[in-house]
């Protein structure tokens, strides 16, 4: 290994799932002590790239070289590359020492040397400069300390490259600063780091260089010092917003959905009003309580407070909400939304099934179900050979359209969307945005929760920003500014410390 060989070098890296190319032709070098920002929108291919680099996925084609040596398949423990995943890979009821050392326990298989393991864990934790008892169980630690344990665990094998995937989302400001100090320290020690984050301020704080992914393609790379945040964001989003502007109608002044003093363990005293024909967005970081809020409004979650539809209080349970024309399109379509191994037809008609049954009183079966479903397939532009195809055969975007179509066939007045375009391709995204805008233009009321800020800026009339369970700001469309909104969502001004 020569001194100037990059720790990691990637050429023509490509991954396809079936006929869908998720990542294509990636090429970059990472030098010792360099911190590289891997940025891109949700679904741009960052996770797939990460998984190929740390050995969880085998690339379809292309080459990965570690310290100048081409590598056939990256071994999770053998090549000095480790990843800290956004969802931590820790074991809750195991101790800190067990977690850190688990992939390389000292001693033999038949006799693990726990005193040595504790020693190793203690050294790792001390090196990172955080106080943690190696004997403590993971489930008793707060999010910040768990993150540190995960890093310590990864560092046991990462002597060349450490990949950090959204490491700060569950951290308080203080913990975040500690993490940055750790990154600086590792960098000074010659470790290369790939830093995946949505937060521009963090990227500029810790990274030297960047690679931008968009729809699986590498659309930019270079030194961070040479680009402005605006340029970087535009590279991520690609099409400047003018490319695909949706026509937003003008909302009326009559409130359709009102939330008064809604409180639960996940959010506090939430008040909001959505008017007829309006699209209201709720922005915020992961863990801010947005999904919980949306679910509580629909009656899926316990909370105190009132929900009013057309000025009248409505009992917060799903039956009453549906009867009053409110529906909720879930974030997690695969587990909570769709019946994957049933035909598209049944999935489309499920919410409004009562309508078809009533019409079929004299006969058996569901009259009109087929015709209506077929109509919806056309309307939503769902690409399937036949409405009897199973939903599991569809792509993410088409699945999402089916879910949306199901609720539309109920002819709702108010729609709550949670991450409406999560994991869908760009074409489907436009279709879904257009469908949502059309709903509002025709006088429906829409509330959207999304982590995808450009999306919210794109299709909403008004934005509420949530942080740690509270609404902390309201922005009108004419004042939209992504940087200001992100800083509002992430600001640490009056942080409540929750380090366990």
């Amino acid at each position, binding site marked *: 290994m020569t001194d100037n060989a990059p720790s990691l070098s990637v050429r023509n890296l490509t991954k396809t799932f079936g006929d869908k190319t998720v990542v294509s032709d990636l090429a970059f070098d990472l030098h010792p002590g360099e911190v590289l920002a891997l940025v891109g929108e949700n679904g741009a291919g960052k996770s797939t790239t990460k998984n190929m680099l740390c050995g969880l996925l085998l690339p379809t084609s292309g080459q990965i070289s570690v310290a100048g040596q081409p590598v056939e398949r990256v071994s999770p423990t053998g090549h000095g590359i480790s990843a800290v995943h956004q969802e931590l890979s820790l074991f809750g009821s*195991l101790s800190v020492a067990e977690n850190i050392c688990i992939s390389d326990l000292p001693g033999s298989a038949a*006799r693990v040397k*726990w005193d040595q393991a504790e020693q190793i864990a203690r050294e790792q934790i001390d090196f990172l400069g955080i106080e943690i008892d190696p004997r403590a169980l993971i489930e008793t630690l707060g999010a910040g300390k768990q993150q540190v344990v995960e890093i310590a*665990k990864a560092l046991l094998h990462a002597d060349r490259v450490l990949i950090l995937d959204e490491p700060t989302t569950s951290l308080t400001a203080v913990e975040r600063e500690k993490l940055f100090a750790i990154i600086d320290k590792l960098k000074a020690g010659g470790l290369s780091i790939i830093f995946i984050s949505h937060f521009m301020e963090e990227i500029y704080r810790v990274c030297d260089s960047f690679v931008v992914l968009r729809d699986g393609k590498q659309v930019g790379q270079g030194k961070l010092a040479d680009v402005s945040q605006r340029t970087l964001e535009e590279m991520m989003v690609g099409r400047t917003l003018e490319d695909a502007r949706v026509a937003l109608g003008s909302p009326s002044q009559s409130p359709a959905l009102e939330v008064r003093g809604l409180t639960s*363990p996940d959010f506090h005293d939430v008040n909001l009003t959505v008017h007829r024909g309006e699209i209201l967005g709720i922005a915020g970081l992961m863990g801010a309580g947005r999904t919980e809020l949306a679910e509580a409004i629909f009656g899926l979650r316990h909370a105190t407070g009132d929900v009013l539809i057309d000025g009248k209080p409505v009992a917060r349970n799903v039956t009453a909400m549906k009867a009053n024309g409110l529906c909720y399109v879930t974030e997690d379509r695969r587990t909570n939304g769709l019946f994957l191994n049933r035909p598209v037809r049944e999935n489309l008609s499920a919410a409004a099934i009562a309508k078809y049954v009533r019409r079929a009183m004299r006969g058996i079966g569901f009259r009109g179900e087929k015709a209506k479903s077929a109509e919806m397939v056309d309307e939503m532009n769902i690409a399937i050979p036949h409405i009897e195809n199973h939903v599991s055969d569809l792509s993410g975007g088409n699945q999402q359209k089916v879910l949306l179509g199901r609720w539309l066939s109920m002819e709702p007045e108010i729609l709550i969307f949670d991450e409406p375009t999560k994991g869908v391709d760009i074409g489907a995204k436009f279709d879904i945005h257009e469908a949502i805008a059309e709903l509002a233009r025709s006088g429906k009321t829409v509330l959207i929760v999304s982590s995808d800020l450009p999306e919210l800026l794109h299709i909403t009339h008004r934005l509420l920003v949530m942080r740690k369970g509270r609404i902390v700001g309201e922005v009108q469309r004419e004042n939209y500014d992504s940087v200001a909104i992100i800083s509002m969502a992430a600001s640490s001004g009056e942080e409540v410390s929750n380090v366990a």
Partner: protein
Amino acid sequence: MSRNTIRTLISRQKWIAVVLATIVLAAVLSLASPVFLTLSNFQAILVQSSVTAIMAVGMTFIILTAGIDISVGAILFLTSALFAQLMLDTENYLIAFVVTIVCATGLGALNGWLVVYFRVSPLITTLATYSIYRGAAIHLTGAQNIPVPREMGFLGNGRILGVPVPILIMATIVIIGVYMLSRTRLGVYARAIGNSERSAKETNLPVGRVTIAVYAFSGLVTGIAALILLARVGGLQSGIGIGIEFTVIAAVILGGTKLTGGSGTVIGSVIGAVFLVLIDNGLNLMNASPYIYDVVRGSVLLAAVAIDRYSAMRRHSALEAQKAARMA
């Protein structure tokens, strides 16, 4: 010790609960019957628990990985049949012992392999092998009762230095089990996999091999239990092992091992097994109808999981309240 300390202790170390319950039950029984507190009765209870306790050691590892093996009773029966038949045919102890133990391990390993390979729920997989193993045993022996040689009785009723042999074997296996769980990679990996299979895969742990190994280990100890059982009852009977999977799984769950995997202890399971024998013992002292035994056992298990659920819910709502308080 205040009530609160006991409560925290129990919530951290769940097996303490079954220890306390066992002590209370033993105290009640000793008041009810003067013979209860004698050494011989104490030994009799341990001997009676030995078969289920040994099997519970193996089952603990399986449940720790979030698995389950319904077929242990059938493995017990099939290995008993195999041993009895081999003794009948060869009259060679060495061959019979070795073949029996190897087959028991192999049957367990087959369960593990099927679970890993077909990725079907272990409940269904082992329900199927339960039927296969039991049927194979009946086929093998022609549903005959086969006596085993008299000197086999040593394993069931013999003593070494005054201690009954089944207790010695049980103690050995318990010690091995405790050691394996706390000191070997297999033990740590088993707990880790039960905690989060996703994390285990991301950490590159040998999930498949560990799964097969824990089922194989359970098969192995079930084979040993089969030898003790044969020795105690004097030969193969068609009723061997029927319903024992209930007792074994109940012992593990009573002992504080989470059915969803990840945490539990070998000691807890063993005490759970002793506790279940104590209940029988108590019902016996009360001259209860034999038909009521199953009702009581089932109710105890139900009560144990209900109490556990209830305390978990209370802990959860306490956490939620803390979270809400932090936010307000």
